[in-house]
């Protein structure tokens, strides 16, 4: 599904050149639940950003099936993300002015799905993640765990093949962490969605199909 070869990412911090990713080779198969662990600053988020087309590699290749992400234009990367990838972030990244359904509808709006069908789909997915009683609540009216469930619902509503989750439980207590972990595994097994999760939390590695440790920009 995803083939990463000799991936490098360097950036400048003042006069210093930082090598965030150093020659990573990685293969992710369809239906995998991959967990990337490692210390802060080890390059986990950068790797996810590169796989998700949010950032551009300095060199190397990221092939998604036959499609090469490295070197693709911003517009093409956005469309690629829209059609194939869902994102879950540590701080949920929900729009405060919109309620749960409206936040979940956004990826479908980007795909120009008719609004009635989009709302129905959003409600269905929110019900699937256990939030049928919180459909019209705004983010400020939801707990951290509930907000992350909304974010997960948003990431899967457009039926992506891949979900990238960057520290999805980093802002949650242990109970919510367990719930979110179970939910992601459930979606992985029931819907066949591939997950790549970057985390500090070893709880998420329990049911992972593969675990990689990323340290100083390289897989150990």
């Amino acid at each position, binding site marked *: 599904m995803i083939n990463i070869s000799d991936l490098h990412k360097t950036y400048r911090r003042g006069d210093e050149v930082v090598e965030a990713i150093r020659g990573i080779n990685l293969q992710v198969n369809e239906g995998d639940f991959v967990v990337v662990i490692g210390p802060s600053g080890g390059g986990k988020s950068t790797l996810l950003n590169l796989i998700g087309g*949010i950032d*551009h590699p300095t060199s190397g290749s990221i092939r998604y099936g036959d499609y090469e992400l490295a070197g693709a234009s*911003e517009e093409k990367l956005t469309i690629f993300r829209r059609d194939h990838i869902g994102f879950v972030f540590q701080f949920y*990244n929900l729009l405060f*002015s919109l309620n749960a359904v409206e936040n979940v509808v*956004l990826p479908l*709006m980007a795909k120009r799905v008719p609004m009635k069908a989009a709302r129905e789909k959003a409600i269905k997915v929110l019900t699937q993640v256990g939030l049928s009683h919180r459909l019209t609540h705004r983010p400020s009216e939801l707990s951290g765990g509930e907000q992350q469930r909304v974010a997960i619902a948003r990431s899967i509503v457009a039926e992506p093949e891949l979900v990238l989750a960057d520290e999805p439980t980093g802002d949650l207590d242990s109970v919510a962490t367990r719930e979110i972990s179970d939910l992601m595994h459930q979606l992985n097994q029931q819907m066949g969605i591939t997950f790549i999760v970057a985390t500090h939390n070893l709880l998420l590695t329990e049911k992972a199909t593969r675990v990689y440790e990323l340290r100083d920009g390289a897989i150990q």
Partner: protein
Amino acid sequence: MEGIRFIIRDLQSDGWRSAITIFNLIIFISCYFCLASLAEAGYKFGNQTRDPDELMMISHNVFDLTDSQITENDFEPIRELIPIQVKSVSPLMLKHLNVEGYFLQVRAAQLTDFETVHNLSLLEGTWPTGTNEVVIGEGTRSLTKWNVGNVIRIYGVDFKITGLVHSTGTKFGSLWMSLENAEKLFNIKDQFQFAWIILNPGVNPDEVINQLTNDSRLAGKFDIYYADQLYQQYSSALNDVRDISLVLVLLALLSVMFGVYGSTYLTLTERKRELTILRSVGFTSRTIRVVLSVRTIIQVVFAYLASWVITLIAIHGFESVSPIMIHSIPLPVIISAQVLLIGAILSILFAWIGVWLPTRHLQKSSVISMIQR
């Protein structure tokens, strides 16, 4: 429609910024309405059709036209040109009077000349037949709000308004009475301000002007002009106002553009988080641009309609308290359909440019660069 609902929700949630942006736009667009209406009024005032077949004779070198003095004897050289070059010559009396608190041009002519010589046409009511009757022009009515049937006091005498007339040029804002009435009212005889000359079709007016100017009985005592020359002189005074107004109109619309530019730039800077989220869930930079444009256009349309209503009320209030007058001729300032339409198109165009300029880099910037900016 759902998309627009989302945008309106967003505008509501961003209430203060939306309100301040709309308030700014209202100020600029109201300036546009005022200035464009003024420029258009000036343009219409100075561009009425010229009639080269009409000439007028007044006393030589008078500054105030009411100081012009012509007697029946002075008409003689003109009458000698009838019927070859001149079709008719008629006396016209002109006074500037304060009538019921309004400073008006009062014109007096022979009743038979109202339609044939002075091209007045009756819009409402009847022509004056008896004594102490007058008709008023459209400009006078819009200024005074008098109606047919009203009785007004002129120079201490009551007159009844019997009709409303249409006319052009300086006559637009006049009040008309018969020569007999005027002579009785002002207690003068055989003393007029103008000799109104109608030429036969095809006659070269410059030749007639030349001929009369060189006539020893008139030379040095009277000047001959085109009948609408006076009007052209009045309107030329408006040219500067009109031109300055047009420049200010452009500046007002440019201010709309820069106002929108500023608010869009602030949105891009302060709402980077939301925009980044939209990009990460698959909204292309083009779609975001469209969203920002629609968001701005909703604000502009709202501000435009509000400005229209506010300016209508302001103009109406201003006109009723202190109407703009050019030599006693009211200058009707209205927001025409043309001003409304052109303003709408230009406001939306300039607003769109105001969105386009700060968002043009979005297409090339990566999501990570938006996060880091």
